[in-house]
């Protein structure tokens, strides 16, 4: 496991983990230790919101892994996120048991409503937490494996790949909208009650989920960092910059691509699984092409091929979204659209690029080769 240890020798990784740990500790302390009347108190709603941002940040890291280091612009990562979310949603749905509106111990409410008499085969096993959590990884992983195997083998790259990933998530969205699919159709899965025996509506569970999201982000970051700093990561960067040349050097490019793509899809699935209990619903709109492309914007704004940039981007954009949609909902799409244009035209290396320039000026040395390539 040398590759997993390596990131801890990097200053940037330690810095990132330190900042993350500090943020988690501060929020937790402000929530628990500061009394409710104090202005510094962080209420459960805000903790919940931060937890959501953290799961989005993990999703952004997953996208940055394939886009930043592999050069694959996936416009369908929302699909993996949603699949992980649905796997978690199915577990939470089974946990409701006979406390639903129709009081059926086996079937979720929407199935009773559709007059189904038994659980479909693909819902079997989701009453067990370990199975559901395994599926959080396997469902998106398997889709990525099949899709990636077909796509990379026939060397579909660049814009073509982007467009078919978009078609993939669009097709999945249409499918999940259908009641016959058995995932609650339009309404999706909701009305969750508890996770692993903890009441989802209690503040402690929310804090727990927030911390779990933070931990998952830290772990995901380390895994990604480990991948990109390993030899495998170097092959990935080589593929990104000159695919044909790498292939001629004797590397089986499609295998590297497939491996990293599947890892990224699984991370996205984990992010989805953490997101669903925190927002309390999963429905087909998570498959919408707009959402997938929004994720790419987070990464672009934060800065491609840095990983920490993706985290920064996800938090900035989502915080802005929360503020905008609260204050003036009409302006949000203008702001989002404007961001897309400004970031790509004026800020090709994102916020992380700005930071890096400062650091470099102070240190007077050059940045990593990765950043140089992206800027070129």
């Amino acid at each position, binding site marked *: 496991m040398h590759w997993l240890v390596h990131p801890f020798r990097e200053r940037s990784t330690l810095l990132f983990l330190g900042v993350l740990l500090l943020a988690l500790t501060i929020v937790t302390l402000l929530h628990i230790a500061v009394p409710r009347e104090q202005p510094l108190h962080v209420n459960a709603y805000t903790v919940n919101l931060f937890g959501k941002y953290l799961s989005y940040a993990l999703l952004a890291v997953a996208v940055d892994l394939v886009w930043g280091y592999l050069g694959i612009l996936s416009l369908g990562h929302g699909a993996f996120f949603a699949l992980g979310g649905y796997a978690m949603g199915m577990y939470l749905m089974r946990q409701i048991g006979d406390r639903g509106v129709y009081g059926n111990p086996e079937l979720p409410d929407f199935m009773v409503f559709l007059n189904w008499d038994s659980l479909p085969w693909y819902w079997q096993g989701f009453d067990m937490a370990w199975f559901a959590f395994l599926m959080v990884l396997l469902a998106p992983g398997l889709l990525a494996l099949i899709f990636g195997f077909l796509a990379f083998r026939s060397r*579909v790259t660049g*814009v073509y790949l982007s*467009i078919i990933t978009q*078609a993939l998530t669009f097709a999945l969205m*249409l499918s999940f909208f259908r009641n016959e699919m058995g995932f609650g159709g339009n309404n999706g899965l909701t009305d969750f009650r508890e996770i692993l025996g903890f009441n989802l509506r209690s503040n402690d569970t929310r804090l727990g989920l927030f911390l779990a999201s933070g931990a998952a982000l830290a772990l995901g970051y380390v895994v990604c960092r480990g991948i990109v700093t390993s030899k495998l990561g170097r092959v990935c960067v080589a593929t990104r910059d000159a695919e044909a040349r790498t292939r001629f050097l004797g590397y089986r490019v499609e295998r590297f691509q497939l491996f990293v793509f599947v890892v990224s899809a699984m991370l996205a699935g984990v992010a989805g699984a953490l997101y669903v209990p925190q927002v309390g619903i999963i429905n087909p709109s998570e498959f919408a092409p707009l959402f997938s492309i929004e994720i790419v914007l987070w990464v672009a704004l934060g800065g491609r091929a840095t990983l920490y940039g993706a985290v920064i981007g996800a938090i900035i954009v989502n915080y802005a979204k929360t503020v905008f949609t609260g204050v003036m909902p009409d302006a949000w799409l*203008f702001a989002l659209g404007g961001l897309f244009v400004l970031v790509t035209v004026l800020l090709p290396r994102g916020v992380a690029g700005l930071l890096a320039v400062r650091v470099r000026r102070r240190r007077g040395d050059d940045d990593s080769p990765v950043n140089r390539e992206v800027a070129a």
Partner: protein
Amino acid sequence: MRTPATLMTSSITARIVTLALLCLLAWLPALASAQDDDGRAVLEGLDSRSFADKAEAIEAIIQSEDERATDWLQALLDGNLQRLKEDGRLVIVVDNVGREWPVRDALTGDELGEVPRRDLDRITINNALRSQLRSALSMVELYVGDERSRLAAAEGVIGRVDDELAAALEARLEEEESDQVRHRLNQALAVHRLERGEAGAVETLYGSLNSNVRVALTRAAQSDDAQVADAARRALADIEQKLKLNRIAETLYFGLSMGSVLVLAAIGLAITFGVMGVINMAHGELIMLGAYTAWAMQQLLPGQPGLALLLAIPVGFLVSALAGIAIERGVIQFLKGRPLETLLATFGVSLILQQLVRTAISPLNRTVITPEWMSGSIAINDALSLTLNRLYVMGFALLVFAALMLVMRRTRLGLEVRAVTQNRAMARSMGIRATRVDILTFALGSGVAGLAGVALSQLTNVGPNLGQSYIIDSFMVVVFGGVGNLWGTLVAGMSLGVINQVLEPWAGAVLAKIMVLVFIILFIQKRPRGLFPQKGRAAEG
């Protein structure tokens, strides 16, 4: 032409003919006032509880030869003949929407203003009366109508002929000049003869697609008379065969129509993405701008939807082309050679355009009026009719395609575009101003998107999400057809349209769409460069 006097083969014919002739004289107001008392007498016969009384009253109305009779009978049939509760006057409801209905006096025709529906009693009819009314009205129509309404009337009586009406129809047949109407009348009579057990009548019914003919034949096929049953079965088999062909033709028509919409939406993209290699995610919004132009033109020219639509074609082209130039100059030129960034930036532009329309016009759908010459349909036969607006859009798509082909193949611009896309540096050193070519090409592709929008405004709702719903489809069509190949786009669009329509009946609309998407995703794995890949060095990169 025989004179009405020789037509007295049956009492009903004579009366109907006179009635019909009087209808033609309906504009003579003097006649109306003179007959007012007679009219009231016959009309009030309808105001009875017993259906038998009403049947007699209807007969009396026909016999009265009053020129308002068709008006009354039609209103009675439609359920619009009603009684005012307060004074028992009979009125005709002009419009039965909402709670207050405008009515007019059945006798004098005076407008009586709006009356609450609670204050009205409908003169009810039963099925027997309904068919009596229909027969009478069709006979009137057969005598006074123009060819089109005579045809409709003749079609209407098929399956509803009794002995009395048969005699009247035969009389009319002698006189009818239109072959088509005669054909229908013959069929109506043949159904009547078949119902009486004449096997020979089946001959006339071969290949008829009228549903009443089919009902009569199905019934005859189960008859006890072996000869009749046999003949009817053979005719039915023949009709089934023909129906199947018609269904195939219909699916094909809808498929091609949907295909031409896809081609229209994608053909602009085939220029900007296919030829120039610029990924414009705002393409859908350029289509939307075209559709809104059609709407705006109709707002500017109220009362002339047709003219507005025709004007919208060049204006829509210009609007979208200008928007395209703005996008090219404002965003795309800074991102040359970075396709993924271009994709993201133009996506941002598409969000801004959508929200702009939502804020500036309305988040709700707008209706674009279909001009009269585009509405309606052409009936090929009883089972197959082609809607005109789709036919126009189909023609328009082919026209746009041909024009684009000409521009790309036969003009200097087309030559320069191809030169610049194949080898930019070489083209520039030959003196081609590459930047100018970029702008013009992008404007052309965008303008075509505007044209697509104008056409789409006739088929779908015009709303801020119009573009979004076409962008994925458009990219699919271009990629499926092979990037950089206009013919490929045409073939891909048409075949995807047809595939979708073939799948739809047994899979449902949503599943059909999913299947087509999955099919394309798999197809691209097999042939990453589409149906008609570009060959040579231009294909790389």
